């Protein structure tokens, strides 16, 4: 199979899986086998593209052009490959987790859950491998639409309200701001291709480029930069696997991924430095980092705390995308991977606690480490990574981000990252502390307290993999680092 065919298959496989899943509606085991098999195959196919990219060949394929001069096409480049590898691997793990979670939690309408999940992942593949900004936009919108039924999965009033919030923010920003930026860019430059060094330099004045940059940064609502961040906490009404994979990895990372692509391939890092708005947008990102961390501190609901933490962490990457420093770009790209592993572990743990004990609030989780030692050990690893302590993966990316910020003397960025590190510690460590070192609340049956009662096997397996991955990435950061360096090398 040629690389271009593999590329198409990567996008197509998750898109056709729903047909199979729906057909196996009455046979849950076969249905889940399809999900597992599909996600596993997808990962292997994406992985097979790695060699091509490492050797510098970038397979590409164009399909049709809806509007003359604009194509729907796919191409592989280092950042996209990294994102696709990440998403497809974690999809497999999440599928394992979902099987445990959805069955144990007796969720309704599981078939439609797996269907939309597959479509969402297909959209993510489309985003990762989009050959131009237009294709990327199409799959960006498709991702929003396909995740809407997942957010409203519960079907109650709260879910419907959250669904409105979700669609309102994401479609609203993308249609009014991002689409405008897209069409504007197209009418100024006549192309929407991703080109090393950008397409805007030389065709627009820094003034118009400023307006465009503002439209892009806020228009890509999935980055959750304030003030367009409220959809993310709202989306937490979804089942935990959705929050874990989509709203900690796939959807939000699609946002920062798009922004990185725009800053590298549409503006070009050098041109970005000449735009007055860049500096101000960095301040917005820095403010988001600190403010979201402060909000996280106040949340008692564990999933909400994680959501606010995600908002804060996403803005790290936004900051990096705007920092005009190659080291920053490396740090930001690698952070996509590092944060993903840690955050998905944390969400898996939150879901494990929910299905085993029905608890959602941090204040109820005193002593839970004694009942669920494995789960909480994984949680601890995730928390360490979020803070950026070795030996967890978060340390690596934070190191490069700080180096990048210092390299270009962005002291506001340095301060924001440092302050938020402290805040991260302040909202994650207490959870770990009360889980392990506080006595559990009075239980009617004292004997029960120290008895280990862990989550179902499938759930433990999944969160074990991601926790081990979080540590492993600290020692084996070569692959993401190599891809990220190739990215910066290519654009220079």
């Amino acid at each position: 199979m040629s690389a271009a065919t593999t590329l198409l298959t990567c996008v197509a496989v998750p898109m056709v899986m729903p047909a199979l899943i729906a057909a196996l509606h009455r046979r849950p085991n076969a249905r889940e086998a399809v999900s597992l098999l599909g996600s596993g195959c997808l990962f292997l196919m994406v992985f097979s593209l790695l060699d091509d990219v490492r050797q510098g060949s970038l397979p590409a394929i164009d399909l049709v052009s809806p509007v003359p001069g604009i194509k729907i096409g796919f191409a592989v480049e280092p950042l996209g490959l990294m994102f696709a590898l990440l998403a497809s691997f974690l999809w497999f793990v999440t599928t394992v987790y979902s099987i445990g979670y959805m069955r144990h939690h007796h969720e309704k309408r599981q078939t439609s859950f797996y269907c939309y999940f597959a479509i969402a992942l297909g959209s993510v593949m489309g985003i990762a491998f989009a050959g131009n900004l237009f294709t990327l936009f199409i799959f960006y919108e498709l991702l929003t639409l396909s995740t809407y039924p997942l957010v409203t999965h519960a079907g109650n009033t709260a879910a419907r309200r959250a669904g409105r919030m979700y669609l309102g923010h994401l479609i609203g920003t993308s249609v009014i701001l991002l689409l405008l930026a897209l069409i504007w860019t197209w009418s100024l430059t006549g192309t929407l291709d991703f080109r090393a060094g950008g397409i805007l330099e030389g065709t627009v004045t820094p003034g118009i480029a400023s307006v465009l940059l503002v439209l892009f940064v806020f228009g890509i609502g999935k980055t959750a930069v304030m003030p367009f961040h409220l959809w993310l906490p709202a989306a937490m009404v979804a089942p935990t696997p959705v929050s874990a994979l989509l709203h900690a990895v796939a959807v939000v990372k699609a946002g920062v991924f798009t922004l990185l692509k725009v800053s590298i391939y549409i503006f070009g890092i050098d041109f970005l430095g000449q735009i007055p708005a860049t500096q101000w947008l960095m301040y917005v990102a820095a403010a988001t980092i600190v403010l979201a961390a402060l909000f996280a501190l106040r949340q008692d609901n564990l999933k909400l705390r994680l959501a606010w933490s995600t908002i804060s962490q996403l803005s790290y990457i936004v900051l990096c995308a705007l920092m005009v420093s190659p080291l920053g770009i490396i740090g930001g790209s690698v952070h996509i991977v590092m944060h993903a592993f840690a955050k998905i572990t944390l969400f898996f743990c939150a879901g494990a606690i929910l299905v085993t004990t029905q608890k959602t609030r941090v204040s109820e989780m005193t002593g839970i480490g004694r009942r669920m030692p494995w789960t909480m050990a994984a949680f601890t690893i995730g928390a360490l990574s979020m803070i950026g302590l070795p030996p967890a993966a978060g340390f690596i990316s934070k190191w490069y981000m700080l180096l990048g910020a210092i390299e270009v003397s962005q002291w506001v960025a340095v301060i924001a990252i440092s302050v938020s590190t402290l805040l991260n510690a302040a909202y994650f460590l207490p959870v770990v502390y009360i889980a392990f070192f506080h006595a559990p609340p009075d239980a009617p049956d004292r004997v029960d307290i120290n008895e280990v009662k862990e989550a179902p096997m499938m759930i433990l397996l999944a969160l074990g993999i991601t926790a081990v991955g979080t540590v492993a990435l600290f020692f084996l950061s070569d692959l993401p680092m190599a891809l990220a360096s190739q990215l910066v090398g290519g654009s220079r």
Partner: protein
Amino acid sequence: MLTENLVALQVVVPLIFAPVCLLLGKSRHAWACALTVSWLALGIATLLVTRVATIGTQSYAIGAWAAPIGIEYRVDMAGALIIFIIAAIGAMVMSYARRSIEHEIAAENSGYFYACYLLCLTGLLGIAATGDAFNMFVFLEISSLSSYVLISLGTTRRALTAAFQYLVMGTIGATFILIGVGMLYMMTGTLNMMDLAQRLPGVDDTRTIRVAFAFVTIGVSIKLALFPLHLWLPNAYTFAPSVVSAFVAATATKVGIYVLLRFFFTVFGIHFSFVAMHVGEILMVLAVVAMLVASLVAIFQDNIKRMLAYSSVAQIGYMILGISLATSAGVTAGMIHLFNHALIKCALFLCMGNIFLRLGSVELHDLRGLAQQMPWTMAVFVIGGLSLIGVPLTSGFISKWYLVSAVLDAGLWPLAVLILLASLFALIYIGRVVEAAYFSKPDPTAKKVREAPASMLIPAWLLIGANLYIGVDASLLAGIARQGADILIGAGVP
């Protein structure tokens, strides 16, 4: 031989068969006759478009009387596009009609219905085919009068008042157009559009011509339901039989826009219309207000047919906005959206017909949980709705893309923001229906309904399929629309 007469056949065939339908009366043959004629018209239209594309503008002298004396039929790329979409919608709607008409219209009236439908089709096709200003008025009246009858056949008595309201407004519009055309004849001594275009520049600095321009503009604006002259439209679309709503919504206002294009660009010329009379600025303001206000009003409608009707008023705003730019890109965008919106709205109204057939209502609260009982119908609604919002890979996105880039080319970026904002309102009103149908618990007392019959689903899905196809590859449509726009714009340059 046959190919040279395509232009005339396009109009004459449905005209001849209208009385035949009447004779066939209430039997099912009337439907079969109307169906055959509709498909025949589509076949002729397809040949005609191909011919115009390969050979160029088609001119036909009725009765072999040459142009200045006789009536000339003249079909260029712009007209051919309109003829094609009307014929296509007609064929789809007639394929759909039988079950719906049996359900909604008394059997003894069905002969009248099919006869009026064919007359309406004749009128609409004639408008796009003719090259004569007075003849255009006649066809406009044929289509309007027959659509008053069609609307009055609705299931409730309110259809009568709706039809009457439309009749009063429509007649005022028609009278205005007639007065305008009369004044033009008085000043130039001709009714042929090409002749008018040649002779008008000599006399256009007179009050008579300016008044004629105003009469025609306002008269046509009533016909095409330009805000604030749209008040007849919501009732007419709401209370008409489902088939009629789908047909009229997809064609009548579109033809109105075509008439406007013809008068602005071909007859009066771009210079007179847009520079001397400043009609561009006026239309632009009205179009933007229509887009925003009608979309907002649509959000608050509980009857979904009425909601779609208001949405139509808003979408007409998009088309007029494109035209008001008076640039090649703008007119292209207007014509592309005209085509796409016909496909979208027809599919959505057909969807309402399916729901009405089974449920007997199109009120929002009766639709709760309907998606489980009528999944295929609601899927049409969702895709059509996404298209109305302008989601990528649907035809609505293509329209929006062309319109926004035309507006940006003209340097009017605040308008671009407003266009996109208005499309968000569409998200809200479509979202309400989707939420009710997919995410609300059905009323426990409500009766269980089945999915609509295949004869009604297939035409709707064909329209949706065309819509998605254009979303993926619009080069053919865009090429035709661009050619049409260039002819219109070029014709006006002195």
